[in-house]
């Protein structure tokens, strides 16, 4: 606070981040055989990328993540698109493990190195008009929908440097479209796997739940440890139309070496429910930008998240709850447990726009420091421009609750086991609030595994 974060002038930042591999020619090559509107959209996004300076720690939103030290774009070559198929016998063991628990689903999709390799959707939903397909295929099959919603309303390129980069360079991604009134009991499961180290991967997800529909979507991204720094950029746009209900879950289990940039924006219309859960376990650096926008009367978004960090992992969560419409509610709970020299940043903002009367908005961030060298920074912000609101936020940072430990140890548990239980209980609260089948067990299992190590 002592020194002022300053936004550099446009001239100073011109062309920052343009490299031998990330440049206009790469975008032009990608756009070469695409429809004109899409090619133009990519190039406009590239223009936005070129003129936006590289974020520095002088920007509030990047205060605690120094890209000049954490990310080297120069050697990163974008993975080119190539037609791929999913061959179970040749698939990496880690991916098969991840898919093992995902049998019970309304549909599956597998993406390898940013390219969709297989999709299957239960016939009952396909016949009702549900679409689960690769974004590339959707450009052909659903051009109007893609043209209307891809990188326009939710994550337009001028939102920021990396939003622009993804909008210019995405190779493939996922479209899920749920028509009016269709209700899907079991989730859609998406497994994304990164194989090529030292590359830049750009993928997008677009989800639209039409009026009165219901769906849950579980995205899991993973990799083996990556031998050199690998950029994994995910852009996620989610829309719920009136009275729709949607749950979006993202599970991030990338190997060390990954720099994960996940940019998500959800837009909830009248009386719809749009809940998200972000679980960050892997990667060396994971930056999540999550914005929930409540644009319809009575819309509701619950935003849940947890991270568990060890070694020198660095997590940076940047969230916002944008209340544009009256009588909407949002409730955010993010928790982090940090071991070794791991570090987490939580910066969240509740923004109640003028006229958004009757807003109920809450925001809580809790952090557990498990080692001497772990560090947590928390910035829960409020900006309120309407008077008839109920808003609160809270943040805590501390160590394991000694009373809890004492209780468990007095029942004969050794300290190490008691500590493990307290950590699992601390993080488990998040999972209990969005008890999607399979997800709770999977995440609990991952955390237990980490604690035993």
């Amino acid at each position: 606070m002592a020194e002022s974060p300053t936004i550099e002038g446009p001239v100073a930042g011109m062309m920052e981040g343009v490299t031998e591999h990330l440049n206009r020619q790469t975008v032009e090559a990608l756009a070469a055989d695409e429809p004109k509107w899409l090619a133009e959209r990519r190039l406009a996004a590239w223009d936005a990328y070129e003129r936006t300076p590289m974020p520095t720690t002088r920007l509030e939103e990047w205060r605690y993540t120094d890209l000049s030290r954490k990310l080297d774009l120069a050697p990163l070559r974008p993975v080119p698109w190539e037609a791929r198929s999913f061959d179970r016998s040749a698939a990496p063991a880690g991916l098969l493990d991840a898919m093992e628990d995902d049998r019970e689903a309304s549909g599956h999709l597998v993406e390898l190195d940013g390219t969709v390799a297989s999709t299957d959707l239960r016939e009952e939903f396909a016949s009702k008009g549900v679409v689960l397909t690769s974004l590339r295929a959707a450009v052909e099959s659903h051009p109007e929908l893609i043209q209307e919603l891809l990188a326009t309303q939710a994550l337009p390129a001028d939102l920021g440097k990396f939003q622009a980069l993804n909008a210019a360079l995405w190779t493939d991604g996922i479209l899920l479209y749920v028509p009016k009134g269709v209700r899907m009991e079991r989730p859609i499961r998406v497994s994304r796997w990164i194989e090529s180290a030292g590359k830049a991967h750009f993928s997008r997800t677009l989800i639209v739940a039409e009026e009165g529909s219901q769906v849950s979507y579980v995205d899991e991204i993973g990799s083996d440890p990556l031998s050199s720094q690998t950029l994994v950029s995910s852009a996620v746009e989610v829309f719920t139309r009136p009275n729709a209900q949607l749950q979006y879950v993202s599970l991030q289990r990338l190997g060390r070496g990954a720099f994960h940039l996940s940019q998500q924006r959800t837009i909830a219309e009248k009386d719809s429910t749009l809940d998200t859960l972000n679980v960050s376990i892997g990667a060396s650096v994971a930056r999540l930008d999550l914005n929930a926008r409540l644009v319809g009367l009575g819309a509701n978004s619950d935003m849940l998240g947890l991270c568990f960090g060890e070694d020198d992992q660095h997590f940076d969560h940047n969230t916002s709850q944008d209340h544009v419409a009256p009588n909407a509610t949002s409730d955010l709970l993010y928790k982090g447990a940090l071991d070794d020299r791991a570090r987490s940043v939580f910066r969240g903002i509740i923004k109640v726009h003028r006229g958004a009367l009757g807003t109920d908005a809450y925001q809580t961030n809790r952090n557990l420091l498990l080692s001497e060298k772990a560090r947590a920074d928390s910035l829960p912000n409020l900006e309120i421009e309407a008077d008839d609101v109920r808003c609160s936020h809270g943040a805590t940072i501390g160590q394991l609750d000694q009373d809890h430990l004492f209780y468990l140890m007095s029942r004969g548990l050794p300290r190490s086991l008691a500590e493990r239980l307290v950590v699992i209980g601390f993080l488990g609260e998040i999972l209990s609030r969005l008890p999607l089948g399979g997800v709770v067990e999977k995440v609990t299992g991952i955390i237990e595994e980490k604690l035993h190590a």
Partner: protein
Amino acid sequence: MPQNEVIQDLGLDEYKYHFITEDEPVFRSGRGLNEKVVREISAQKDEPQWMLDFRLKALKIYNAKPMPTWGGDLSNLEAVLDEIYFYVRPQEKMERSWDDVPPNIKETFERLGIPEAEQKILAGVGAQYESEMVYHSLKKEWDDKGVIFDSIEDGLKNHPEIFREHFGTVIPSADNKFSAMNSAVWSGGSFVYIPKGVELDTPLQAYFRVNQEQMGQFERTLIIADEGSKAHYIEGCTAPVYSTESFHSGVIEIVVKPNAHFRYTTIQNWSNNMYNLVTQRALVHENATMEWLDGNLGSKLTMKYPSCYLVGEGAHGSVLSIAYSGDGQHQDTGGKLIHAAPHTTSQIISKSISKGTGRSTYRGLCQVHEGAVGSKSNVECDALLINETSRTDTYPYIEIEEKRSNIGHEATVSKVGDEQLFYLMSRGMSEEEAMALIVRGFIEPIAKLLPLEYAVELNRLIDLEMEGSVG
């Protein structure tokens, strides 16, 4: 139906400190800030070379630093600064006897109730008019015990060693753009030394008045509370309302030595055309306590975050902050708590009220350095919104490097509840009275810590401001 006499009697609907005293200053610098002005100020004060060097170095730092882009709207400030007088000397020398103060200035402070308060409740009084302290006095019993309560200029002249040892050490010139500005052009303010073990049972008070149009006031205060001492210092600020904007930028440095207890109270009620950008910081040593009580009611824009650097084991720091933002006002206030030693504790309690188009912002930092084991900090912010056009923001920064610590932050935002209003009105109160009562209840936890006169004044102000606020 019972009549609330306080409200009936006030019958004022404008800023009560608006009155202009006709006078001619003894010396006035040119407009704007430059090296010539800095040299003039130093020459007027007949300063030692080291202080002139200090000022000139600070001017360089000021020029090199960009205008903050966070906080309030400073887009017009550079234009304002080009027009203001950085130094206005109202009289030849500071007086020790009230009778010797020039009549027009004396009248000003009499209208503000200062001499009366001095006799009744204060251990000492300082009064600053424009750029200089015009009056300073300390009751004899405290003088006899070695307490020093003087203008900052006399502090430099008469106590050069202790002055130089501490001056600019708590808040270096380069801390921020406005501390650099103050370091270049400071004038007026207090120098306070409380000797070991001396406990003052009544407060010291400094009163700051800006009378002239388009002027900048840059008081500089240095306070040293020696081991085991205890004291309370109060500052109050007012100015008349002009159509042009004025500027106030103080730097307050406090050293609280081991086992000492110091409280610093500010009741800022500048007119609504004043930019008020102040840096206040205390260095708190072993087992010492520092309390900031910060009331921001006036000004166009205030940016002020009183800080406690808890550098000694067991040190305690607290900030109690109350902000009121009416039409066109922005109070960007809060506090900073730096835990740099083990077993240090701190708290911030912040309450703000935004009315009309007013905006109240809480901005705070709580930092626990590695090794500050067993530190505890708790921050609570409550914001009350009166109208649909009012705005409030909360920007806490929490930076924790030590696992053996316990840090919490809570904030709530609410509007005056319809049920509360209905209940009071069903007991026969008018809506305005009910509103004023609820707001008084909201700030009561802080108001009760104020000396009685200030608590009364604050309540009067709330009543006044709530008039016509309904609907």
